[in-house]
């Protein structure tokens, strides 16, 4: 059997040349070629994936360079009429800034909108707070008013007695504090 050259084996591996009989050495070389092809392909794909990031980094670098160069040039271009050019320059700079930071502004507005929506949802869950924020407060007629409700009472220096007085003006709740050292109460 005639010994095969490496170039013939590579053509066979690429499907360009048909070889009928292959010895063990040739098969091993073809398998090794396959592994090498996979390595090269993977490396190329990784390089391709990195291209956008590199491109963006280059773009930002160029933008920063332009920004750095713009200010001194503007000052040099209009050294004799700074006051007349001020309003136009300001608006132009503002417009340019808005153009350059459009993405930032959109990010901010979307974030703020999301937070505001969450705040509204959370605030909407509490009926009492809604009533408060709506600022609807009624003074009930005397006949419809409820007596004062005492949720907690602490009288460290004595004892507290709760009294309710009623008249045509409404309810009056009294907490009468008697000092602890008083023998006779009210």
């Amino acid at each position, binding site marked *: 059997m005639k010994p095969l050259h490496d170039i013939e084996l590579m053509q066979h591996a690429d499907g360009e040349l048909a070889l009928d009989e292959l010895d063990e050495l040739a098969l091993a070389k073809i398998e090794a070629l396959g592994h090498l092809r996979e390595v090269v392909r993977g490396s190329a794909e990784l390089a391709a994936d990195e291209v956008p990031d590199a491109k963006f980094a280059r773009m930002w670098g160029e933008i920063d360079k332009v920004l750095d160069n713009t200010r001194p040039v503007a000052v040099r271009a209009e050294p004799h009429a700074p006051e007349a050019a001020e309003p136009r320059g300001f608006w132009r700079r503002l417009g340019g800034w808005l153009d350059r930071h459009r993405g930032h502004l959109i990010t901010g507005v979307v974030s703020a909108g999301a937070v505001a929506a969450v705040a509204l949802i959370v605030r909407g869950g509490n009926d009492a707070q809604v009533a408060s924020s709506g600022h609807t407060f009624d003074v*009930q007629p005397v006949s419809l008013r409820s007596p004062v409700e005492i949720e907690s009472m602490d009288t460290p220096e004595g004892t507290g007695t709760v009294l309710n007085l009623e008249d045509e003006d*409404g309810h009056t709740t009294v907490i009468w504090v008697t000092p602890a050292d008083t023998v006779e109460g009210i």
Partner: protein
Amino acid sequence: MRARWLVAAVVLTSSVASAQPKDAPTVDCELFEVSLTTTKAPPPLDPALKPLEKKLAKPPFSTWNTATLLSHTTKTLAKLKNEAFPVKVGKAAVMFENQTGKSQLQLTIQVDNSKGKRVLGTKIVIEGSDYFMTSRDDGTQHVLALTCKASK
């Protein structure tokens, strides 16, 4: 990247600030400080005490025949802000906790005596324009009368 986050933070802050209620609820509170004594010739009631006249004429306040107004303070209370009321004897502070329903206010009231000791700490729910009173012996019979209603 830093500029982007800076802009986002500024817009976010302004948005959250604008999300707060513009007409945050407040209440107007009136505190009367009264001293009760007994005299042989009681003077006519101070006109400033007219809102308390009927209450002071009932027991146990009617035990004393002379009511002297020590101080009268009106304050607007913001929600959850403890407000000290200037009084002649001891200290008094009121906090507007919350509005309950359409006509009731939840208040926290703290009273210290002339020696600086806490004599009352209470949390109440009271109808707007109704009165809450507390009384104790602090040299003379000392009375605090509080009424609150929503600010207009």
